[in-house]
């Protein structure tokens, strides 16, 4: 297992998200390898869900394409197992509660540990419901990432003091997706988190340009990009390796310089 915090060691972290199986798992595998070789510090592999309530249209559609291509939780585990040996950065799953629950939460976390998945992000499991996952995560050493939103306010210290890996700061109200501007005062949230914990903070939701990435990395320890990458995959399908590589490099430069 690789600790998620290693992504943040001696640098700001660039975290990239990709929907597994969009347009197929072969392409996903190539994209993960490319991203890891071109400056991404941690990869979130999305297990597609039929009804991703926290996602905007870009990731919703990617999930449906992935499911339509026959992607299943088992096939994603198999893919993770194939790539793990070659990839030196932390890998986490991002998915919704029901695919984990339906697989059997214990069995799911056990498989994660077997194939070398280091952490998990589940946006529909808030602090109050963490017992649904946490005992199984602990049992197999999978880090459970906590989310903090612009509306969290008085909840920040409670969530942050129990957080593991890194704190995922949701930049804006609403669902995932590219935004022209991010108006939330990220610095204020980060400083509230700092009062409770010293684990790293990464900002996600709405970030797509190198300029936004640069601004966000100065406010936090890492930058998470999802929809902007998924949008490139949507446009180029099986030929998305090149354009994703170029895009990821441009963001990595902005985050690491």
């Amino acid at each position, binding site marked *: 297992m690789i600790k998620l915090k290693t992504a943040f060691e001696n640098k700001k972290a660039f975290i990239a998200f990709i929907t597994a199986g969009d347009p197929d798992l072969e392409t996903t595998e190539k994209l993960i390898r490319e991203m890891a070789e071109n400056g991404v510090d941690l990869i979130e592999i999305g297990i597609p869900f039929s009804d991703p309530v926290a996602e905007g249209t870009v990731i919703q559609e990617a999930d449906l394409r992935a499911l339509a291509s026959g992607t299943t939780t088992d096939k994603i585990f198999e893919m993770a197992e194939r790539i793990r040996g070659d990839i030196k950065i932390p890998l986490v799953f991002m998915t919704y509660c029901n695919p984990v629950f339906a697989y059997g939460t214990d069995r799911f976390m056990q498989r994660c540990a077997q194939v070398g998945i280091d952490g998990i992000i589940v946006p529909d499991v808030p602090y109050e419901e963490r017992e649904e996952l946490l005992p199984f995560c602990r049992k197999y050493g999978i880090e459970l990432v906590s989310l903090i*939103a612009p509306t969290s306010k008085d909840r920040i210290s409670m969530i942050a003091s129990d957080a593991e890996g890194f704190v995922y700061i949701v930049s804006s109200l609403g669902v995932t997706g590219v935004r022209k501007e991010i108006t939330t005062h990220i610095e204020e949230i980060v400083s509230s988190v700092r009062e409770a914990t010293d684990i790293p903070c990464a900002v996600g939701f709405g970030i797509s340009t190198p300029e936004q990435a640069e601004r966000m990395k100065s406010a936090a320890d890492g930058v998470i990009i999802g929809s902007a990458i998924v949008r490139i995959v949507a446009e180029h399908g099986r030929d998305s390796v090149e354009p994703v590589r170029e895009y990821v490099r441009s963001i990595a430069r902005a985050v690491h310089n």
Partner: protein
Amino acid sequence: MSKGRFGIHGGQYIPETLMNAVNDLEKEYEHYKNDDQFNKELTALYNNYAGRPSLLYYAEKMTKDLGGARIYLKREDLNHTGSHKINNALGQALLAKKMGKTRLIAETGAGQHGVATATVAALMGMECEIFMGKVDCERQALNVYRMELLGAKVHPVTSGTMTLKDAVNETFREWVSRMDDTHYVLGSVMGPHPFPTIVRDFQAVISREIRSQMIELEGRLPDAVIACVGGGSNAIGAFYHFIGDPSVRLIGCEAAGLGVDNPKNAATMANGKLGIFHGMKSYFCQNEFGQIAPVYSISAGLDYPGIGPEHANLKDTGRAEYVSITDEEAVGAFEYLSRTEGIIPAIESSHAIAHALKIAPEMDKDKIIVINVSGRGDKDVAAIARYRGVDIHD
């Protein structure tokens, strides 16, 4: 265990962004539910605006025709806007207003909850936006126009299966982007805590009335209460004040569509498995990997792949029984009640009537059944005509 549990079911499985909104809602509701002024205002709205109490009507012709148990119809179809949905919409809108919200959003399946919410928004001078699956917009075009007449903006939802579950997804997405001035008027006893409790409490007026009306009319409690279940709000409303009376059978009728063994059904209790979706742990129609199944019913109000957590618990404990009714049986009951009693029931409620048609003849004549006629069927006439091969325009 977290808050809002019914046995193992319920809970609050929602994004962090919404947690303070549901916590605020819970706090405010806990305050107002015991507030005399709030309850006085709500009762006044129920009685003077919605037309409560609704009748408990003895269906004499139907009783004689079936030759068994005495049948009473709880006439929620006579409420203003034509269904039980107004009970919850009035309660939540009044609560939202007290909380200082100025905008209401809601999902709708058949359109009845959307119409009720749009109606109450007009009454209370609040903005209103309704999310409705594109398929349902087509099935229930008349209700779309009704909502627009009432001043609401209707958003056809084009994601997923374009029906009720997708409308719920989209309303959550809207709420997560705008909570400060907006209340989500969830239409059924589902979603994260405190919604299943709030909606149940506002719908419990149905069984409170049935109970006192039945004692007045017959001097005793009924032997069975039958209601249709999608998410389960009219059923929990009709069951609630009888849960502590084991002599009263509680029967929920879910939509079997083309049959429980046919992939085209919405029979969550028959076919669903324990899962976590739309903010709650409950039973859901899903595949082995936890992907939510596309469901089908002729009734846009019942084709939901889950069921409220309190119903899931009533099933687990055996206190309520759940049966499946096919499209064909429901349409038959729709036509039967229209001809026999001169009452055109909603196609949703027709699922409950269909079950009564099966069990009443086998019960003794001194037994009493109450069927909750949750809504009226005007909205369904065109769809039933199409089902019977008659081409009429809405």
